[in-house]
């Protein structure tokens, strides 16, 4: 059923034998979404490595996700990369219908295993837990909080472990969470800012920002009150130097590039989980170049020491962080 149409400028038949083509489908518009930007980086890296081509199809809702996946399947590239748990049902359906097509899912996996579906998932909660520990150590008020986009299990991964991490190092810490919500939760930074403000008003001085585009709003609010915030996915410290303490880094680019590599090497159908141990999840503060990161944590080496110790315990398996999404 998969026909090659004019869109397949890098069709396997016409180009050199080892030239590969990859298509990445996003669940949302890429915009300022650092997570998606990194995924695109990953697919570009893979394309370069195989002197192949890559395409990115941006979706904005379930209907366009469905159409984009269908279009990708119709074009039959070597690997279709799907970023986000929204694709689980779709991939299951398509993988069954097109057993020769290779799929790589990032951030989620199908419930059933398929030979042609490989997955890369992240244990963000481990990183968030460490960020929470930093917050617990740095908080003066003993109050920490998080601003999530929506009250969904995936976003709970950015709030619950943050509280747990803070309580681990400072048991008296109290934590609360706000959800942006509203009519366009991923984009409404005005609401995100207000939600952060309502935390700040309670005396919260450390805020985990998992508000997508609303993160800028959270940073603005924290900055105005002299409080601190934690970014996600990439180093967000430069967007509010002096306010952003640290970031829960999610190396999506690495996961995408490695995943493609594995599939091409014939090791499809596996799920790789990236956490602290694998280096897929980290904190900016725990990486090289902390000092030039513009992150507040660079000035708190003592805190970093304790956090490193915590990380080592997690990596060693001595400490398990609860995953809210697994409930």
């Amino acid at each position: 059923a998969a026909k090659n149409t004019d869109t397949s400028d890098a069709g396997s038949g016409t180009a050199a034998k080892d030239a590969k083509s990859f298509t990445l489908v996003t669940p949302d518009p890429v915009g300022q979404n650092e997570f998606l930007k990194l995924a695109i980086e990953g697919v570009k890296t893979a394309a370069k490595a195989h002197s192949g081509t890559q395409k990115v199809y941006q979706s904005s809702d379930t209907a366009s996700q469905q159409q984009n996946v269908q279009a990708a399947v119709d074009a039959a590239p070597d690997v279709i990369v799907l970023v986000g748990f929204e694709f689980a049902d779709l991939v299951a359906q398509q993988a069954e219908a097109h057993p020769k097509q290779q799929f790589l899912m990032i951030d989620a996996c199908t419930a059933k295993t398929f030979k042609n579906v490989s997955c890369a998932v992240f244990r963000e909660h481990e990183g968030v837990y460490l960020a929470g520990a930093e917050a617990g150590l740095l908080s003066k008020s003993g109050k920490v909080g998080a601003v999530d986009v929506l009250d969904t299990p995936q976003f709970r991964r950015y709030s619950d472990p943050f509280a747990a991490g803070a309580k681990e190092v400072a048991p008296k810490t109290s934590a609360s969470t706000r959800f942006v919500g509203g009519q366009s939760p991923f984009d409404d930074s005005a609401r995100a800012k207000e939600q952060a403000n309502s935390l700040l008003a309670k005396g919260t001085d450390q805020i985990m920002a998992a508000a997508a585009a609303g993160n800028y709003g959270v940073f603005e609010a924290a900055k105005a009150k002299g409080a601190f915030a934690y970014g996600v996915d990439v180093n967000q410290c430069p967007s509010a130097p002096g306010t952003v303490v640290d970031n829960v880094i999610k190396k999506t680019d690495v996961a995408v590039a490695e995943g493609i590599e594995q599939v091409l090497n014939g090791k499809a159908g596996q799920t790789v989980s990236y956490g602290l141990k694998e280096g897929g999840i980290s904190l900016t503060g725990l990486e090289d170049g902390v000092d030039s990161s513009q992150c507040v944590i660079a000035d708190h080496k003592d805190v970093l020491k304790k956090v490193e110790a915590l990380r080592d315990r997690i990596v060693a398996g001595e400490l398990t962080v609860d995953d809210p999404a697994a409930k």
Partner: protein
Amino acid sequence: MFFDSDFLMSALRALTPILLAALGGAVCERAGVFNIGLEGMMLMGCFTAVATSWFTGSPWLGVLAAALAAAAYSLILAVGAVTLRGDAVVLGIAMNLLAVGLTSFLLRTVFGVQGTFGDPSLAGLPLVGGFSPLAYLAWASVGVAALMLSRHVWGLRLRGVGEAPDAAATLGVSPTRYKYAAVLVSGVLCGLAGAQLALGNVTLFSENMTAGRGWIAVVAVMLGRALPIGVLLAALLFGLAEAAGFRLQGLGLPQQATDAAPYVVTLGALFLSTAQRRRRDSRTSRPTGVTS
């Protein structure tokens, strides 16, 4: 604890863009033009403000450009509804759709991004006492609009035009001209509302970032009976409901309940106010010509 100063600030911030847009809507309503295109005009303001501020580095030019762009955009309504006598409701709905499409399209073509454009070096409006100068302007506009509408010659004539255009015309006041002016004023105010939202409340543009605020402004116009003070109270009600919603999340209410709160409160207020109006109307029934 619940109603502290931060709560009030939060409510005031939520209310500011709505208030500016609703004042525009009220002026239109007074001139007899039903304007439900506030959301679209506001969104045009958001985009223009951010684009101009980004390319010129001056948020003030952004504000100015937003006002001008939204005013230009409002001409669709003026020409369509006043000159061509098209249906204002349909035009308004179409303008809202057009603005979403147009700003997203421009976001892609001008900034090459989709979804959101924001940058740390994008200059936002400075804060004075916790609020942007536009916020003060918004509150001042309530007074100015109230004064203009009730006391100024223009306001009197505008009210007359909205009430009975042919009566105004026989006295030499051009209804068309006043209606155009009212629509343009609403455009300017919605442009400012957009600038406040995109450069004041936050500093970025994202697709459809008005997120229904224009519709709430339309409801505020109805609830406030198109009186500036009434509109202020209605917008305040909404702002308080939203701020309370944020707080209630803290008390453990689910996000969905707090999302719905402002709309439920607004609908309830509409019930009460129309019920009250009806009761009053039935008491003072209009005298008829033939009395005995």
